[in-house]
């Protein structure tokens, strides 16, 4: 039996024995009294005893019952006593904290901020990195892409034939589904025509995700057959909003994309796919897009069979890939499947920032703990008299340490309560960090039970962290010294401990500030990068015509011509134009480019060029100039020998810098028409930063009239938002079934593309400022305490003729040593830490010289400022009062 067990056992038997003894006494008293009464009334003693015992009943059972009740009572009392004692400690602690309200409030504020910030970030991290995706058995879900490692293409969309081959050949997946983005126009019933984001998905995908519709059923395999009647699934939100939650919606036929479509089901709340989609139709491969090389569809999602690992799935799929390379060398050479867990696919690019935020917030928490420990230590030193008296009166060191720990815990718990509020508020704030101010449906940002448990854990941890030092140091009191009034509790060791805490704080602040500055500089670089187009004063909106309504090219051209003509006539509009995809919209169609007069490129090194169809005024509308040649005109309608514009990159990469005007280019396959270059436009950033610019070719819309275009309106003087109602009216007048989507200004589009950089910079800056303030408070605390401790010494020095400058220098020298030490340690830490940031930086290196010089200098300046007040106080010490006070 271990020692502690034995102690417990002894304690238990002790309780039992004494409870039993009391019960025995009580019962014996009863029987003896009865015997005595009976004897007094003349019964002989033997008979009397027998009768008394008979009347009493079964003594053993009664005794046992009663003892059991008594033990229960005693146990409860002991627990009560224990709780009472803690409560007394808490009350004493809070009372003594109230005596030093300055310390109490700053400690509370610091720790509440620290706990709150940590709570918010960990809640977010949990939601993003840990909490299961809202799909059944989500660990078995993987995303499947194509990749071409040789050409460094990763996470490329997949082609329909590749998908079919994988689906039919794989042994690793229980099912493999395919989907692609789509936008659907809902019109007719339920209000105005509107564009709904959604997806086309293979019927099995709903089953793969494991989310059952709340109404109706999913798709059936025959839904994808050619000629199958059109069906759709809608989200809970869309059902509520557009159809008022009408439960007869299932089976109803509504107009989607000018086709009467049967709603076959409503998905449950919070199911959106992908990201924010609200409506889904069965996936139908496009006719004429059925080559292995046509990797234009979005992606595949698969469910692994039980007990199949990702690596096993990869080797299974590589086997199929190898067969495809053999069968279709032209299209599949160098290509293979790329499998990654669905979570990594969805939130993979948030992983790094979240980890960095976590590390940063832990540093803030550490600073908080150092700071509060410092405050409590200073207070402990001031209380050394009280503690010495209590020790002298017989309080054990453990008892005093427990008292001090209870105080720290009480402080931590109150701070934790405020911290929960700060965390709740912080998490709400983080929601706004996502584009569109809504995180995607698979990230649920909340402070839930898990987060609360974690915050409680942090709270207790901080209680220990900032309580332990004062408890150990504060109770080690040399009675003689303190009570005699010498030294006043200021021992050298203690001030060394407090000094190192300040050094730690400053060092961590340097690390955080360097990180924040690097990220802010990246953001500035993002903002400062010349885009090549003018994003001010432009309104854009996407339009997609329905094929049944506009079957011929002539009809489409006529619609867009009339639309642009009417828009151009609106007051304040200087240009009205259209393109397939505007800059930063994610529109990215690329094809092989072969150029007349240039040697053919080797396989694997083909030139890929971005291409799209634009109206004649598009470049003028977005402020991109012509370098040479001519613009496209409305008369450029020849689709057999189309004229094209190219950008400067294309000239450089494709034509080797030679004059391209009049040269022929072939974009796409052999069946595509040969185009003639008529002009060169300036380069501009079509892709979002930090992606580089690339070669591009522009066709005239009239030569290839597609159904969908993005309208671009430039205004000279007006706020582009003011054009929205007029734009809607013009479109409605032309065709009420045509819906507008993504109605936004260019600067909104551009601004939104920077959200990640802004988020990184903003979060780290908040932490850096927080830590700077905390470190200054810490430094200030240590110095003012030191000045108070040295009042007598300073008084003597002044009396002996030291002037103000000498005294100020004395204090500043002390603070200078701490600051220099902290900055030096911090810089070394920052050099390591900034490497971790490297992938998030743009246009600035991890060892950026500017950052690594301004941060330490700035911090040192601020820190010295924080020591100015104590230094001034030191200089104003009245020598006579200081010496007399002793």
């Amino acid at each position: 039996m271990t020692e502690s067990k034995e102690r417990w056992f002894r304690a238990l038997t002790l309780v039992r024995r004494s409870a039993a003894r009391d019960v025995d006494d009580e019962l014996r008293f009863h029987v003896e009294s009865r015997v005595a009464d009976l004897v007094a009334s003349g019964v002989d003693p033997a008979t009397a005893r027998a009768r008394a015992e008979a009347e009493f009943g079964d003594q053993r059972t009664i005794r046992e019952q009663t003892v059991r009740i008594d033990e229960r009572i005693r146990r409860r009392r002991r627990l009560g006593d224990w709780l009472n004692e803690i409560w007394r400690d808490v009350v004493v602690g809070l009372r003594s904290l109230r005596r030093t309200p300055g310390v109490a409030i700053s400690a509370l504020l610091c720790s509440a901020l620290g706990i709150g910030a940590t709570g918010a970030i960990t809640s977010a991290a949990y939601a993003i990195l840990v909490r299961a995706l809202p799909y059944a058995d989500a660990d078995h879900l993987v995303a499947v892409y194509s990749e071409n490692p040789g050409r460094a293409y990763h996470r490329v969309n997949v082609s329909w034939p590749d998908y079919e081959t994988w689906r039919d050949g794989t042994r690793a997946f229980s099912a493999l589904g395919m989907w692609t983005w789509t936008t659907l126009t809902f019109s007719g019933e339920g209000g105005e025509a509107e564009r709904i984001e959604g997806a086309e998905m293979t019927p099995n995908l709903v089953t793969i995700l494991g989310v059952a519709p709340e109404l109706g059923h999913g798709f059936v395999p025959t839904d994808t057959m050619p000629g199958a009647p059109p069906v759709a699934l809608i989200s809970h939100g869309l059902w509520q909003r557009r159809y008022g939650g009408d439960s007869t919606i299932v089976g109803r036929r509504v107009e989607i994309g000018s086709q009467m479509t049967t709603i076959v089901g409503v998905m449950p709340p919070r199911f959106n796919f992908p990201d924010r989609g609200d409506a889904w139709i069965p996936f139908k491969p496009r006719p004429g897009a059925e080559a292995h090389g046509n990797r234009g569809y979005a992606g595949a999602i698969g469910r692994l069979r039980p007990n199949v690992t990702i690596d096993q799935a990869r080797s299974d799929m590589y086997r199929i890939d190898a067969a495809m390379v053999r069968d279709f060398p032209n299209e599949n050479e160098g290509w293979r499947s790329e499998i990654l867990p669905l979570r990594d696919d969805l939130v993979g690019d948030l992983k790094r920032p979240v980890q960095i935020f976590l590390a940063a917030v832990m540093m803030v928490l550490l600073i908080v703990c150092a700071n509060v420990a410092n405050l409590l230590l200073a207070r402990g030193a001031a209380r050394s008299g009280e503690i010495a008296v209590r020790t002298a009166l017989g309080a054990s060191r453990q008892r005093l340490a427990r008292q001090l720990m209870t105080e720290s815990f009480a402080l931590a718990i109150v701070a934790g309560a405020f911290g929960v509020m700060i965390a709740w508020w912080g998490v709400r704030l983080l929601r706004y960090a996502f584009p569109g101010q809504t995180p995607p449906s698979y990230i649920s940002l909340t402070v839930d039970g898990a987060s609360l448990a974690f915050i409680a854990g942090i709270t207790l941890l901080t209680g220990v962290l900032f309580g332990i030092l004062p408890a150990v140091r504060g109770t080690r009191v040399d009675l003689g010294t303190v009570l005699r009034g010498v030294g006043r509790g200021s021992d050298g060791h203690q001030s060394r401990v407090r000094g190192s805490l300040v050094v730690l704080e400053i060092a961590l602040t340097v690390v955080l500030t360097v990180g924040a500055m690097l990220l802010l500089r990246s953001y500035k670089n993002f903002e400062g990068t010349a885009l090549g187009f003018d994003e001010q004063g432009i309104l854009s909106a996407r339009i997609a015509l329905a094929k049944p309504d506009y079957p011929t090219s002539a009809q489409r051209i006529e619609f867009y011509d009339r639309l642009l003509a009417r828009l151009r006539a609106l007051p304040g509009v200087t240009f009205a134009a259209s393109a397939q995809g505007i800059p930063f919209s994610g529109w990215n169609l690329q094809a092989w480019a072969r150029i007349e007069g240039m040697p053919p490129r080797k396989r694997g090194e083909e030139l890929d060029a971005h291409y799209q169809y634009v109206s004649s005024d598009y470049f003028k509308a977005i402020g991109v100039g012509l370098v040479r040649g001519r613009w496209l005109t409305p008369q450029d309608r020849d689709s057999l020998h189309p004229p094209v514009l190219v950008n400067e990159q294309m000239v450089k990469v494709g034509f080797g810098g030679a004059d391209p005007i009049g040269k022929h280019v072939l974009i796409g396959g052999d069946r595509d028409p040969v185009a003639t270059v008529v002009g060169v436009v300036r380069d501009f950033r079509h892709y979002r930063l930090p992606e580089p610019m690339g070669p591009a070719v522009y066709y005239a819309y009239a030569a290839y009239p597609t159904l969908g275009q993005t309208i671009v309106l430039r205004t000279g003087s007006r706020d582009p938002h003011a054009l929205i109602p007029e734009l809607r009216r013009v479109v409605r007048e032309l065709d009420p079934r045509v819906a507008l989507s993504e109605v936004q200004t260019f600067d909104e589009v551009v601004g939104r593309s920077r959200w990640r950089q802004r988020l990184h910079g903003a979060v780290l800056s908040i932490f850096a400022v927080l830590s700077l303030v905390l470190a200054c408070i810490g430094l200030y605390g240590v110095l003012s305490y030191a000045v108070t401790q040295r009042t007598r010494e300073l008084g003597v020095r002044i009396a002996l003729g030291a002037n103000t400058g000498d005294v100020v220098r004395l204090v500043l020298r002390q603070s200078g040593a701490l600051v220099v030490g902290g900055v030096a340690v911090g810089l070394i830490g920052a050099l390591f830490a900034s490497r971790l940031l490297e992938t998030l930086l743009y246009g600035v290196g991890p060892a950026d010289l500017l950052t690594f010089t301004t941060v330490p200098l700035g911090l040192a300046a601020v820190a010295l400022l924080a020591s100015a007040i104590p230094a001034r106080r030191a200089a104003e010490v009245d020598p006579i009062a200081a010496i007399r006070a002793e």
Partner: protein
Amino acid sequence: MARSVDLLQGTLDLLVLKTLSWGPAHGYAIARWIEQLTGEVLRIGEGSLYPALHRLEERSLVASDWQRSSTNRRAKVYRLTPAGRTQLRAESGEWSDFVAAVAKVLRAAEAPSS
């Protein structure tokens, strides 16, 4: 010898509380008082008084302390707590209602028509 009636647990509690409402008493005195007042009709198995007393103590309806008895022996003396007094009032009322209801049934001349 009088016929004795088995006491229900709750009834015993009620009697103990009532007895203690006259003043503090030890277990033996409580047993004697109940016996005398009920004319020995409600004769309690005297020992069962003690689990009942301790349970009342557990519920904080009575409190106890050790005193010297008249014969100078250690005796555990019980007294009613304010909570016990409240409980007594409530239970007496319920008991009267119960008795009245049973009496009404017993007085009834014929079966109720339903």
